[in-house]
């Protein structure tokens, strides 16, 4: 390992931070141009002019926008997201629990989905254009084509109502023991796995097939290597970059885009939290959640970039 790679990695991380900063400006600006006044939104119909003026003063709404932005950013850098306007609860601590739940569910789904997708992709390549390939692709595409709520309902019907082996309600909290928690997320994690499987599987298959056209694969075949060894040793390492990219995109989806699954399985994650607060025009919470989601996306993309760099010998060993 040499310094160029470290420099590349450092560059990516720095770029990510700049991007995150830009996103924070966008989020803040976006919530500022939303119609309606925050004080009015809090007080509702019964707002009197004095109460409005008092609340504006109290919330610092009379300061110029840039000053409010600086205050906001400064708070966040110190882990202070402020308090939710609707319930008066501390945002950081409410998000903490929810984020943990979301990450747990995403991790459970990812632990199953990612290896499964890659292995299925490898198998599909090995038996490409044959019956096995078609079966794998067909099933995976079918499971992705169904809307996630449909998959969720089918799982509930079969496993929770008919056989009653898993709960349909996945409510968990801090005191839930690990095994119970695991049991609670079986159905939502399965639903999510089915949703993201095909994308990753198809990408693995396509990326490896692309490499399979290369001359060195032919050489390997002529050497007499077994088809699986060729794929494992020669094709897959060279196809990692695009696969990692797709995997990261799907991981990001598992964290930020699962509100439908959360609602169906009554899972207390970030999605439902965001939706509730958007409906109540609770701007500080929306800003905080938006920023966290942006950070997740950016981080995962950096990881994908770095993985692609590390996996590429040409970038690892520049001339």
């Amino acid at each position, binding site marked *: 390992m040499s310094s160029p790679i470290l420099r590349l990695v450092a560059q990516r991380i720095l770029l990510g931070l700049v991007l995150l900063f830009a996103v924070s400006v966008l989020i803040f600006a976006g919530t500022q141009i939303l119609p309606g006044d925050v004080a009015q939104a809090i*007080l509702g119909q019964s707002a009197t002019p004095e109460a409005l003026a008092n609340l504006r003063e109290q919330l610092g709404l009379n300061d110029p926008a840039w000053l409010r932005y600086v205050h906001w950013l400064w708070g966040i850098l110190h882990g202070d997201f402020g308090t939710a306007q*609707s319930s008066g609860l501390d945002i950081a601590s409410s998000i903490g629990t929810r984020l943990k739940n979301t990450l747990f569910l995403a991790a459970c789904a990812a632990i199953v989905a990612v290896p499964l997708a890659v292995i299925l992709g490898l198998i599909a390549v090995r038996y490409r254009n044959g019956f096995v390939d078609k079966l794998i692709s067909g099933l995976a595409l079918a499971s992705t084509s169904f809307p996630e709520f449909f998959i969720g309902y089918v799982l*509930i019907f079969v496993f929770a*109502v008919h056989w*009653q082996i898993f709960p349909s*309600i996945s409510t968990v909290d801090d005191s839930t023991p690990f095994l119970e928690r695991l049991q609670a997320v079986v159905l939502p994690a399965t639903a999510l796995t089915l949703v993201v499987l095909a994308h990753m599987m198809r990408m693995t298959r396509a990326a490896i097939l692309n490499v399979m056209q290369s001359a060195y694969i032919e050489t390997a075949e002529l050497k007499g290597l077994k088809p699986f060894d060729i794929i494992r040793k020669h094709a897959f390492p060279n196809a990692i970059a695009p696969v990692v990219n797709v995997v990261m995109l799907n991981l990001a989806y598992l964290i930020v885009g699962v509100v439908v699954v959360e609602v169906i399985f009554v899972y*207390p994650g970030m999605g439902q939290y965001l939706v509730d607060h958007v409906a109540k025009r609770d701007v500080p919470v929306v800003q905080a959640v938006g920023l966290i989601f942006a950070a997740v996306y950016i981080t995962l993309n950096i990881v994908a970039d770095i993985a692609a760099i590390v996996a590429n010998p040409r970038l690892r060993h520049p001339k």
Partner: protein
Amino acid sequence: MSNELDYLSRRVAAGKLSRRDFLGRAAALGVTATFANSLLSSAVRAAGPVKGGTLKAGLQGGESTNSLDPATFLSQVPFAFGKCWGETLVELAPGGGVEYLIAEEIGSSKDAKTWTMKIRKGVQFHNGKEVTPDDVVATLKRHSDEKSKSGALGVLKSIDTIKADAGNVVVTLKDPNADLPYLMADYHLIIQPNGGNDKPDAGIGTGPYKVTVNQPGVKHGGERFANYWQADKYGHADQVEIIVVNDPTARMAALQGGQVNMINRVEPKIVDLVKRLPGVTIRAASGRGFYPFNMFCDTAPFDNNDLRMALKLAMDREEMLTKILRGYGEVGNDMPVNKAYPLFADDFEQRKFDPEKAAALYKKSGHSGSILLRTSDVAFPGAVDAAQLYQQSCAKAGIKIEIKREPGDGYWTEVWNKQPFSLSYWGGRPTQDQMYSTAYLSTADWNDTRFKRPDFDKMVLAARGELDEAKRKKIYRDMGEIMRDEGGLIVPFFNQFVDATGKGVEGWVDNPAQELSNGHALIECWLQA
């Protein structure tokens, strides 16, 4: 035969015979399953509640923005959980009238302006303190203060002074109001220590359950309060739990899978399927909620009563009831009250679908061209379908309706009470006076039909101050007539609250005031093994 059934049902209640065996014996005696079941539940009720267990409800209507401060209660979950941990002065009794809780009795002066409420002694808060008249005064004052932003503010606006006097609380009103006891049953008015001024969302009340879990939008839980003052009546389960399940299919699945014992808001379109499920009981109670089509009486073309009447006559109420609510409701009569209200005269002539007369009146009104009707999914379940059905029945009378489907987000701020012809819903109020005062007085903020009639306003005030029930009933009858024939609302139907319970849930009482037996389901039901 009936003696034998009685005997058998008592054996079931005593746990000496299984329910299945009982139903089998009953069938052998030639009794229908429905009758046998109802016989059984009365026997079970007579045998008395069973203590213990955890009663769980999966409810729609909870958000992560909810708070335990009763002043902020708006949706179903805080409402139902509030009934578990808190109590108001009085409650709306299932058969009309009031049930006395923290107030032992309520009396009024002859002019209905000064009301004296005797506060029950020996009622304890969860923190061990006893309820005093001062707590009650502080509670009422907090909710009647503009700053509290309480949902009960409108109800308490007419109060002039609130004072504690020995064991009583004395309230004087600005104007006479014979309905004050009903106002005190508002679900926001949970009596809190020192009125909740110290910590409004502490969740400390006098209810049968102490708050143990409070995760807004996720879960709420309570355990039985040992010193509850009427433990024989409420609070049978050791623990109660409310899980927020906003998705209707997930709610149904949770009930079927046995994860919860009761759910609210069963969609009318699936009720007939649900009924056939083993162990599931549908609890449908007729209520005071209705789904109106609102016309602004002061905006053209709706300022013409002939046109309004034409639009009323062009409504096929029976068809609406069967197609939109699947029969789980009662046809409306173009007034905002029905027989679920006290002092309602039930001799009104039912308005019927009459396309010919509607066509004639439409012609007479001189209006031409189409009429724009705004609707949205959020107005009520099935509101878009209802608008389309109405469009078709109007077409039969030669009236052209154009439907505009509005986005759900912003419907209540931009369309309802702003646009001249739109669909909406009302949850109903405990009394006719409250319903009329909320939406049909000239000065009401929520006058969503722009119905402004000084003579009608006078009748509302006259009825409010009238302590003679016969006279009051007569005034309300006349008001209903005016509403029906000259008002701006078309009422296709009143809806029922449709809840469902799972296996072994007993003690349910139908209550027209609100869903889930006015929120009492968790505290009045028990689990029969």
